[in-house]
């Protein structure tokens, strides 16, 4: 044998440190936010990036019955399709206004509003209750704001599911593999007994791609970008339009905004 365990770990650790600057460049939003010239690389620190999503419901409403974002997410991430609503797994889905924003609807709203199907997903909160309660740090907050899941560590206690005020999380009640319709060989499946949710397509962001739902939306209703860059598309759109977030009074600071 050429090497012992201690030396191996030392070398890997040093490589990781050396690599982190290189890996960081892959995560720069420069290619992702291609619409504008500035890159957040100017800021030079990891906290320079804070990913967020803006759902422009004015454009989304035009396409009734469209499920392109949901289908894209399902395909890219090998999400199972389970008919039984008690067992379903959904990372991105639609709800009517009174269910997406409970306690805020009134009977005198416009018909359009009443019929609108809002696109919901994990809000990747700034102050996520799910991360606070996870006993193993299986769900954790990345420096770029994404609330990530480590399926290797999750013990399936479902405390995060109880804590999430938005109902964004799913447990795999059974082995999901038989229920996957079309398989993407580039992404793993999950196993039974672990919790999963939207991950803002971290694996695609690492390659400089946009999240699958954003790419699939052909009416420009889903915008994705860096909240800490004042000139990013999402910031410009939030500056010039009325936006709302789900359950803002809970202090979670969600990073999915809705333009209405």
């Amino acid at each position, binding site marked *: 044998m050429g090497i012992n365990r201690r030396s191996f770990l030392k070398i890997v650790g040093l490589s990781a440190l050396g690599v982190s600057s290189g890996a960081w460049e892959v995560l720069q939003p420069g290619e992702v936010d291609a619409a504008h010239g500035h890159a957040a690389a100017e800021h030079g620190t990891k906290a320079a990036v804070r990913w967020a999503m803006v759902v422009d419901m004015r454009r989304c409403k035009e396409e009734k019955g469209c499920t392109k974002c949901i289908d894209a997410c399902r395909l890219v991430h090998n999400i199972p399709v389970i008919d039984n*609503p*008690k*067992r*379903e797994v959904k990372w991105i889905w639609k*709800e009517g206004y*009174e*269910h*997406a924003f*409970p*306690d805020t609807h009134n009977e005198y709203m416009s018909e359009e509003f009443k019929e609108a199907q809002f696109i919901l997903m994990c809000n990747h909160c700034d102050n996520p*209750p799910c991360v*606070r*309660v*996870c*006993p*193993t*740090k*299986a769900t954790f907050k990345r420096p770029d704001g994404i609330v990530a899941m480590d399926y290797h*560590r*999750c*013990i*399936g*206690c*479902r*405390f995060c*599911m*109880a*804590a*999430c*005020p*938005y*109902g964004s999380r*799913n*447990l*795999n*009640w*059974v*082995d999901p593999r038989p229920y996957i319709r079309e398989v993407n060989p580039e992404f793993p499946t999950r*196993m*039974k*007994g*672990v*919790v999963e949710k939207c991950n803002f397509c971290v694996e695609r962001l690492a390659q400089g791609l946009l999240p699958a739902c954003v790419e699939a939306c052909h009416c420009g209703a889903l915008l994705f970008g860096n909240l800490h860059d004042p000139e990013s598309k999402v910031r410009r759109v939030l500056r010039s339009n009325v936006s709302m977030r789900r*359950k803002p009074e*809970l*202090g*979670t600071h969600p990073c999915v905004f809705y333009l209405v």
Partner: protein
Amino acid sequence: MIEKALKGGPRYWAWISFLLLVIVIGFMFYLRQLSTGLGITGMSRDISWGVYIAQFTYLVGVAAGAVMLVMPKYLHGYKRYGEIIIFGEFLAIAAVTMCLLFIVADLGQPMRLMNVLLHPTPNSILFWDMIVLNGYLLINLIVGYNTILAMKKNVPPPGWIKPFIYLSIPWAFSIHTVTAFLYCGLPGRHAWLTAIMAPRFLASAFASGPAFLVIMLMIIKRVTRWSPDPEAIQNVARTICYAMIANLFFLCLEFFTAFYSNIPGHMHPLKYLFWGLWGYNSLVPWMRVSIIAGVIGVFIMLIPPLRRKEGFLILGCAAIVLGTWIDKGVGLVIGGFIPNPFEKITEYQPTLPEISITLAIWATGFLILTVLYKMVIYLKERDLAVE
């Protein structure tokens, strides 16, 4: 001394065989749950905690109830409780063991249980729950073991266990407060997000734990030659009565806050539980029975002529155990998830495998309790024969 549990009459062995049968059947279903996943239970995306966590929540209360005997005896010198405290400590051991088993049974990936220790997360209440539950189990094992050794030799227990006993008093409060914190710190669940959750839990615990204990002691009185001091039992009954009055009072406070403020998020869970909401009402009979049982229990415990009659005493304690079990298990845990974050309702019904696993864990607790109590009864009967 555990070999004392191997000696018994036909009734005893019938009881043990029954428990073992329930355990084996439940265990087979658990193996199925391990291979198929939690999908064999009735839990769903909306109701992600069900019977298992409900039992866990209730049993933490039963375990904490022993403090209602320890406090008067050790802090206030009420010597009458001296001969029954050991039963309370052993009940705590059995109850905490059941709690831990229910948590493990509820996990989606139980083989990764050690991750909670390998990756300690102090900001997670579940981490603290693990610490306080195991700590309480350890305290009761140390105290119980040494007490029973001392009883065997007819000497007073060693002085060094006193600090452990004193520690068990705030620790008992803490186990149930931490369990309440599991619920009352979650921002998205209006039914749980109330400061009175921990007081409710404690009041319910101090009613249900001693009530459970009194029922056990009355059963022991029927099937063995030893019987507990009647005045001590009456005092426990008074404790149960006041704790249950506090519990019901706290429930009324919840109703006031919800309905006087008229805030939909607060009203909906209570409406669903007690009257039905949007056409869903499967829990209404349960909750109404819980209130009736609680009131009957308080009534019996409050009136001395009733309380002193053994039959009524047992009925009162059983009513309180039933009332608190429904209120905590069904009402609190299930009711907290309804309506879901989208103001929709999915109802919950445990499945046969789930119920079977639950009964198996209860049977395991009763088995532990039986073995431990058998040792104590042997010693008590031995001392009776000597007198």
